[in-house]
């Protein structure tokens, strides 16, 4: 449904995208995961025909993003990073406006948004500027859906929204996917990766890896341990200087310790820590998360 072939883009000062390639299948929920400045927004702008690539080729639903942009604009829905709503118009007026801009009406495509819009209905006459973050997010999604697009581009839809709204939002995306929509979504939050069918990890304009959320962790090759102790900061410092340590990062209440090789014995690590007088040591091997994988791939780069 979306095919990106060696796309590159350079701004005056920085290289935003370097030879990015991937494909998104029809009906897939595909996540583009990376921090601010990784190039996610640039890629989105190219795909929704707002920006021309320097090199490479991309098609959406078979239409070229450079040549067939007029056609493309009628079949894609786009929700930019900040919720692009008219703050001084009401919920109903915003939706009405976007419907008529795309030459359709709320009634014609109500079925698609009904599920989301019913939550907004009580606030129909409230101005968009007075809505909470979660509500704005839902309204923006409705506005992007109102012309019944085949492909949905959502650029960081969950940034700045509280945990409950984030969860609801991902549930909505799941239901839209089940209706056959192809969705490309970007996010800086690694914990959202597991909610996608497939993900691409992106950093400094380069794709680090593309796989399913489960598959992507196979890119993490070194042994990984979770360790905690009474004094977190001293533990980090000591482990980082230890001879067996490849990397050591805080991970919630635990530290994630990547070992240089399989051959390091756990009793050896315990002895090392006891010698440094660490107390209440707790240690167990774990399988890597998407975030561990991201960090190890960044490291390798």
């Amino acid at each position, binding site marked *: 449904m979306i095919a990106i072939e060696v796309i590159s883009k350079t701004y005056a000062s920085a290289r935003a995208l370097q030879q990015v390639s991937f494909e998104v299948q029809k009906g897939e929920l595909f996540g583009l995961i*990376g*921090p601010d400045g990784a190039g996610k927004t640039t890629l989105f702008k190219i795909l929704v025909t707002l920006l021309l690539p320097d090199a490479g080729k991309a098609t959406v639903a078979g239409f070229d993003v450079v040549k067939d942009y007029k056609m493309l604009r009628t079949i894609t829905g786009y929700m930019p990073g900040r919720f692009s709503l008219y703050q001084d118009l009401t919920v109903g007026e915003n939706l009405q406006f976007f419907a008529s801009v795309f030459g359709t009406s709320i009634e014609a495509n109500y079925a698609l948004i009904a599920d989301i819009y019913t939550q907004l209905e009580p606030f129909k006459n409230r101005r968009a500027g007075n809505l909470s973050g979660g509500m704005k997010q839902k309204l923006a999604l409705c506005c992007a859906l109102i012309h019944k697009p085949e492909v949905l581009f959502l650029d960081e839809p969950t940034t*700045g929204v*509280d*945990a409950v709204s984030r969860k609801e939002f991902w549930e909505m995306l799941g239901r839209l996917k089940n209706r056959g929509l192809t969705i490309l979504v970007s996010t800086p939050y690694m914990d959202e990766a597991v909610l996608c069918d497939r993900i691409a990890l992106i*950093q400094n304009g380069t794709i680090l890896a593309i796989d399913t959320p489960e598959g992507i962790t196979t890119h993490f090759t070194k042994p990984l341990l979770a360790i905690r102790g009474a*004094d*977190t900061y001293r533990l980090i410092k000591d482990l980082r200087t230890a001879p067996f340590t490849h990397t050591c990062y805080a991970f919630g*209440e635990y530290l994630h310790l990547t070992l240089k090789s399989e051959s390091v014995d756990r009793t050896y690590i315990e002895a090392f820590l006891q010698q440094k007088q660490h107390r209440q040591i707790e240690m167990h091997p774990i399988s890597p998360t998407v975030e561990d994988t991201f960090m190890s791939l*960044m490291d390798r780069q």
Partner: protein
Amino acid sequence: MEKVVIADKLTKKFGNFIATNEITFAVDKGEIFGFLGANGAGKTTAMRMLCGLLKPSSGDAKVAGFDVYTQTEKIKERIGYMSQKFSLYEDLTVRENIKFYGGIYGLRLPAIKSKTEYILEKLSLGEVADTLVASLPLGWKQRLAFSIAMLHEPPVVFLDEPTGGVDPITRRQFWDMLYEAASNGTTIFITTHYMDEAEYCNRVSIMVDGRIQALDTPRRLREQYGVESMDGVFQILARGTSTK
């Protein structure tokens, strides 16, 4: 253990609306305390009261030993504050930002000089010392902002949503700094609405509709609610009462 931030039935009303409703907690010296809640749950109001920016309607609170009603000037001298949105002047250089904040907190010139060298050295910012802050990567800005908040060696630092949008390694470099400051005895009071951030704190409180609904270590909260993550805890607490 010495208590650095104490709130006792702290309440703020705006007309009929109760923004924070009798919140009670105490934060230890050297503790990293996570202050969680959805947008509009009352986090910001509570923090503004603790920073001496807003007069409470009722209840008591002490920060670094000073009363939030009568000694707000003393409080402001003794706290550090950092928010992701507006902590540094983008159009000033790294050095100028440090100098400016040093001046605000009454540091003498030699002290500012030595602090500047210390920060530049510690954050490896020597080469960009005279570069405008605007051109620095986000992660560097966050670390610089935190160092500046710590410039006058405050006993407690308030961090308002400090770590959005950076890559996972940069984010951990930031947390390393927080752990270091805490192990040196600085109390870290951090608000966030990202629950994975909460897992890093020693203890967390979760505010829902103006009240503190839960307060404990992340581990005990997870066990208590029988879920895998702080996100799970939050979903249970916040869903029932508010779907704004």
